[in-house]
């Protein structure tokens, strides 16, 4: 039976969890336990929104887990209160096997690393090439094009799919989508910027009304062509994509392609194979006048493991991660195989390795590998980090990212709870309040 925060074993909460992951974890767990006698307790935490609840429960009851997975911003305040342990040793041994970490995103302060990165999330635009072809649509270059395409798809009688899948659940994907759209529109998503871009010492609020309201207005218009946005989050968007419910959306890496491809193989469905092939990935269009060099996306979001310093067995859990990643490239690759298309490996040698490229799923769907490479080379390469001062990685900015009011703004707008203007003002208020808190905590 193992208690949730079971005492004694190494308690590890992760949202890397679907049926493949589950099987993989099971195998690795018993292998590891056989080799080291360290009992593992791997718990499925649920995606963002759910996992926080679980973590809160554990932390409040004085029994934090030994490790969990998430993006760094989601654990910013845990880190700030000194509950995380450094993982420099683990990372360096992993780097020896898998190559250097290829991100400069915030993973800790100074030389201290607090995350064992697993993968990167690159934000982009996905669309159904088959529908585009059917309706004779062009690949969008601007927000307006996306909107026009959405309208055209939505209004086409012989297409079942809706024009766009806009996330409007108050937490989760909607927040990400909003921040990315803002960045694509040429402002820092979280509403902060350096007071002095050169000194990079102090942040200030920068939430320009015009840009923000325009993006909100854009999202509101998109929502007209979307299935009920309030029911769309990360999981729903994937499931609905597989079911062909919309023709365009914002997403990460080649995740929809991967899920569709996996399902197609599981069900041996040619229709789904076709859908996977037809799913195209492009950088998210920008705000028309602004070219891609003005895109404020600074770095893909790194996702990985955090070790709790006040957990029961921090050393054992580090050994576990070392065993997982620093053992061999083959073992490392298995993680990406479990959830193909979701992550871009953070370690520079992985994606080019034979082990990686010869995964079964890529043999069946070369398209998927292609898209991943495209994300890395083209989108990350050309659309991220173009604006130097967009890089505001700092504890404060991390703290701000884990506020949910951005998503709430989108939600309010698409549900007509607030006008665009009201939502902006409300959001600005929240921003000011949260930023003040952030400064108090981290300043």
């Amino acid at each position: 039976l193992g208690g949730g925060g079971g005492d004694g074993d190494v308690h590890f909460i992760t949202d890397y969890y679907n049926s493949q992951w589950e099987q993989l974890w099971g195998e690795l767990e018993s292998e590891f336990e056989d080799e080291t006698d360290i009992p593992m307790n791997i718990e499925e935490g649920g995606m963002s929104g759910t996992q926080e609840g679980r973590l809160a429960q554990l932390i409040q009851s004085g029994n934090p887990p030994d490790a969990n997975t998430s993006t760094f911003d989601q654990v910013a305040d845990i880190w700030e209160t000194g509950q995380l342990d450094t993982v420099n040793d683990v990372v360096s041994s992993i780097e020896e096997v898998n190559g250097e970490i290829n991100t400069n995103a915030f993973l800790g302060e100074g030389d201290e690393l607090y995350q064992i990165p697993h993968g990167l999330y690159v934000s982009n635009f996905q669309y159904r090439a088959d529908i585009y072809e059917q309706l004779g649509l062009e690949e969008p270059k601007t927000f307006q094009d996306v909107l026009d395409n959405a309208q055209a798809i939505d209004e086409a009688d012989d297409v079942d799919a809706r024009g766009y899948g806009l996330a409007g659940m108050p937490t989760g994907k909607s927040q990400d989508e909003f921040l990315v759209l803002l960045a694509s529109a040429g402002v820092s998503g979280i509403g902060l910027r350096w007071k002095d871009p050169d000194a990079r010492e102090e942040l200030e609020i920068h939430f320009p009304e015009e840009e923000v309201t325009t993006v909100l207005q854009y999202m509101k218009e998109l929502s007209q062509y979307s299935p009920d946005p309030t029911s769309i989050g990360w999981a729903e968007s994937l499931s609905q994509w597989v079911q062909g419910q919309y023709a365009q959306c914002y997403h990460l890496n080649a995740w929809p392609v991967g899920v569709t491809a996996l399902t197609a193989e599981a069900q041996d469905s040619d229709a789904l194979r076709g859908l996977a092939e037809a799913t195209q990935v492009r950088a998210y269009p920008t705000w028309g006048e602004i070219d891609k060099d003005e895109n404020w996306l600074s770095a893909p979001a790194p996702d990985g493991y955090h070790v709790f310093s006040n957990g029961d067995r921090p050393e054992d859990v580090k050994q576990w991660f070392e065993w997982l990643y620093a053992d061999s490239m083959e073992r490392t690759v298995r993680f990406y195989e479990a959830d193909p298309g979701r992550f871009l490996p953070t370690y520079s040698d992985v994606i080019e390795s034979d082990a990686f490229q010869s995964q079964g799923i890529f043999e069946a769907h070369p398209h998927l590998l292609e898209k991943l490479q495209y994300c890395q080379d083209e989108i990350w390469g050309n659309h991220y980090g173009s604006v130097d001062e967009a890089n505001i990685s700092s504890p404060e900015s991390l703290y701000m990212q884990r506020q949910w009011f951005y998503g709430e703004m989108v939600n309010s707008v698409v549900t007509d709870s607030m006008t665009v203007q009201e939502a902006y003002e409300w959001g600005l208020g929240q921003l000011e309040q949260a930023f003040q808190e952030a400064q108090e905590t981290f300043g």
Partner: protein
Amino acid sequence: MASETGESIRPRGAYIPWDHLPVERETVAGVATVLPVVVLYVLIAVFPIAFAFWASLHNIHTLNPEWKWVGLENYREVMNIATFWGSLWRGIVYMVGSTLIQLVVGLWMALVLNRITRGQKLLTAVVFTAYLIPTIIVSLVALRVFDPPGGVFQMMGAEWFNLWSSQTAPLGSRGWAMRLLILIGSWKFAVFVTIFTLAQLRAIPDRFYEAAKICGANRWQMFRDITLPRLMGIVLVVVLLRSIFMFNKFDIIWQLTQGGPGNATTTLPVLAYKTVYTDQAYGLANAIAVVMFLFLLASAVVYFKIFNPSEEVETTT
């Protein structure tokens, strides 16, 4: 096992100092029988409630184990949260609306089920099932039928009754979300009223109706003068229970709308939940919970003062 102490006769020969205890043997046995209940109750109610109250006096960041004492600060903040009063109001709307519908529909179903002669058993079973199936299933079915693609109610509302456009998701629309929540909740929970009132209806002897018929009473008069008064006691109790349950209802709202769209279906339990997990303010959330509890307690006391269901129940036995 506590029941062993329920034995009242002494095993012959064995010496048990029953008669030398300062309390009556029966008292000991009586207390022993309720001991398991007390233990459970302390675990599940007393301790958590005390904990919640204690927590409400602290400022607690959800992901931080350190508690900062702030006294009644949280309570002041509760009163000042913009969404508190709105949520309280929506909670009352939800509670009153769904309790009323449940009462009327539940009573009506009980009356019909009590009178139909053919297929009574099967229909009763089907009706009861609504109460017994997991809430999550009700939510899943509701989500399905109100979903624009392939949702039959969505389609009917759009095409037959023109309530919304064919692309609208009613559960995601400000105008409809609360109404639908009330209806869906009522579908499931009206049966609670039915079960209780049907049981009472079955217990009303025919002779009362016959006596009234002899006096020349018509059906309405019989309902008004016999059925209704006989049901009054149980109805008062059921209304009280349902109101409390509906006011505290969280799961079905969370599953269907997560309090949205916007805050359109955010009631106090949803607000408390969001305060914990979205706003990360655990202390504040507990203050909300305590306020809810006090609100219910006060309402229940007033209710008892006005209606006194227990007395009503006793006199009509």
